[in-house]
């Protein structure tokens, strides 16, 4: 049971009810981690973030500073890793 630190930003934070938390979960993959986190809607974070076996396009999961490709939900997590979950900030544009 790896223990990782999950950081939830914006809409995801409101759904899971915490900003950051150490979480031990049954399993080893990102998908299993998301499945272990309940949301206020009654389902899990997996229900919110995953669609047809892919990370939904309007959400991002960043592990140790690197964005998780949408089809890499089976990536195995190591203990102590830092997992950021958030809705993609579509409007962060300009320059």
């Amino acid at each position, binding site marked *: 049971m790896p223990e990782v630190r999950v950081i939830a*930003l*914006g809409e995801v934070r409101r759904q899971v009810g915490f900003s*950051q938390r150490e979480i031990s979960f049954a399993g080893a993959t990102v998908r299993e981690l998301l499945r272990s986190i309940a949301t206020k809607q009654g389902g899990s974070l997996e229900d919110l973030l995953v669609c047809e076996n892919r990370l939904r396009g309007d959400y991002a999961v960043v592990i140790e500073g690197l964005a998780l490709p949408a089809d890499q939900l089976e990536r195995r997590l190591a203990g102590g890793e830092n997992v*950021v979950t958030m809705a993609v*900030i579509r409007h962060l*544009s*300009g*320059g």
Partner: protein
Amino acid sequence: MAATHSTPIAPSEGRWIPSTCGMCLHGCGIKVQVVDGVAVKIEGDATNPDNLGKLCPKGNAGLARLYDPTRVLWPMKRTNPEKGPGVDPGWERISWEEAYETVARELDRVRKDDARKLLCAIGDFQRILLWGWPAVFGSPNFFTSLGNYCGGSYHPVNGSLDGSFAAINDYEHCNYWIQIGSGDGFSSHLHLAGSSKRMADARMRGMKVISLDPRCSIASAKADEWIPILPGTDRAFVLGMAHVLVHELRRYDRKFLREHTNAPYLVDEKGYQFRDEQGQALVWDLAVHEPRPWDKVAADNMALEGSYHYEGRELRTGFQVWMDLLESHSPEKMAEVTTVPAATIRRIAREFVDAAQIGATVEIGNKRYPYRPAALNYYRGSQSHANGLFDNLTYKLFNMLVGNIDVPGGHLGVPLDHRGFFVSPGEDGMLKPEPHQLHPAPPFKYPPDSTHLMEWFPIGFDAGQLNAETILNPQRFGLEYQPEAMMLYHSNPWWNMPETNKIEQIFRRMKFVVAIDIHLTESTQWADIFLPDRTFLESTLLNCLEPPVVTGHSLRQPVVEPLGDTRDAYEILTELAQRMGFLDNWNDLLNLVCGFTAKPQNMLDPEKRYSTEELFDRFARNIYGDDHDLDWFREHGHAVRKRTPDETYMPYGKLRIPFYFEFIKRTGDELRVNLEAAGVAGWPYENYAPLPYWKNSPVIDDGKRGYDFYAITFKEPLHTFADTLVMPWLSEVSEKDPIHQGILLNAATGKRLGIATGDRVRLTSPAGSIEGAAQCVEGIHPQVVGVSNAITREFVTNSGVRANGSHFNRLLAGSLDYTDGATGGLESSARVRVEKIAVAGWAH
């Protein structure tokens, strides 16, 4: 009240406080002498290896910004509902509570209706961490109003090449420096004060400088050779030189191209890389005479040149594709475009490749690197054009021909900030292209959300000029709404943007305008509420932006008590976020952009309000550890150090960089599918090409319509953007230099047209016209007229500064036709007619 001094203040009086200059975006280290609570002197901080104790004229004039008697020192509201140029807003002082209540109410009304209806023009480059505020408000409509002129095409190409943000030649090791349309090391661009010292040192050890510029700029005047050239044709000059290297001299760095780029990767008939069934890019293996995966072939066996028939396919290496394109770019052909003689193009090409010493190596810090002490450096003047992507690609590829990218003596990437180059593996052994470093790539959307169409510029940067195009022609672009409120945060779009008449129309449509600034400008005159920010001498910030040879932050800290009743911009934006109910999202965004998510112990509590000092204390500790908190920076001033060789030279190791920019082509093809599916016709896809070539820009073609001269603008180290033009000290210096006092015209041209210095002339472009006094000089191309940016402010509050109507931007077109279709970069030159309207001495 502070004591007054009737005698000069000795350096030993009072105390010297380390801080960071805020007179341009780059932030030199400074020391400020404060006596009896009054800042009396600013000097460069000699302990800061960025600027080495040097300071430019702007930095030296910093006190004039702090103590400018026309600064706005308290919140104000407009009492005159009529708006327009020259209309007195009837400013009336109000409390912060009234100001905040009004702004929050008006913006919240917009937000609850449709947040996209807020336009945000933000030009505070040092406080880049705050640029996400519009995003958490919910509006995609954020633009700088400045970046489209200079970095629009430049930054995406740097990021796509090597994960850098900007670039500069290696001051320390370069021996032959070609400078094209840039003031680097002389008058402008990256960290001018320190760069000027480095340039001077390089010249003292014998480095040769060749400057291409339509005008005899400061760089040209100090160069070994000035080559006058028509604006927007620099790329043709460089393509001509590339032709010489590739087709005439056949001298290029084959080892570099094979080992460190995708130049040997095969390209198919459609312009895509030829791949095997596993999707691996293939090269032509000279040992077995067939295509094989790139990672299965020794570099020496990779064909760099050549066309190959394989199983009915016509394949070429990426390098061969450019060779074929270059065939038609002979110096003679390019001389017709540029007016630079073919013999000069050939001579400079030969000098360059001779100086590059292809094959040489050098040992630095116990490590051996390729040594290529010749490089081409460039910036705004040579690539801020409607084909700016091609311009940038050409200059990079030309440098790559001699293998000088990111090696000692060569052309070096400059990172955005302390994080260094953006390095992560991409496809086929390549570095992952990072055209966007300030925000995620905006996904395609139709109808578009943003008024500057960022969703349609997947490798673009800042097409702020398109606001006028879309807002005034919403049907053409499918824009579903009309903006009705505007936030101006240290940005002056009315002055900065092209086609001022269109910008005025947009301002007239706004139901509410709020300005956060230090002083009144052409744009803030349209504001309903003015929220006064603090100057760089009264506020806190950790700064690190585009450092060419160093890394690390320097602290901006208050050196005096804030004047009047002002607030820090961060605190203003935070207060507004809290009042509108999105403080939690604002803090979350700061958690992300400040990197706090990587060290969760530093994360901001979403529900809690933090002061500027608390924010930057966390920021400092997050990067440098708990022993480098804000107090540490207050005492030491900075944590800036020289970048190490490993951080400077090929920091991406063995990852290859692109020679053939397949991803640009792919991106354009994907955009075409999306736009055509949406029914959008007439979008300019042509610049989504993997390799550059010469084609006329719309400005060149305007010559066929009788606009027989080119018009350019130029700047000097005295000024930054529009900000400093209203400062009496700097304005006075500008006014003493004739080149800032009129429209520069070549003396022979003036004689031919019967125009003498002082005569009143009118310039008319397809977009507009301006007038001014002619200044006939030798130092400008005979077909070019030049207008200094130092004479162009139209609204000033300081009686020590003259207002002048010769605003160059009125000549520029801001439409899609004058915009790079791939990057959104803006054409910054224009074709004009020149006519004399009055002789010198006659009132007009």
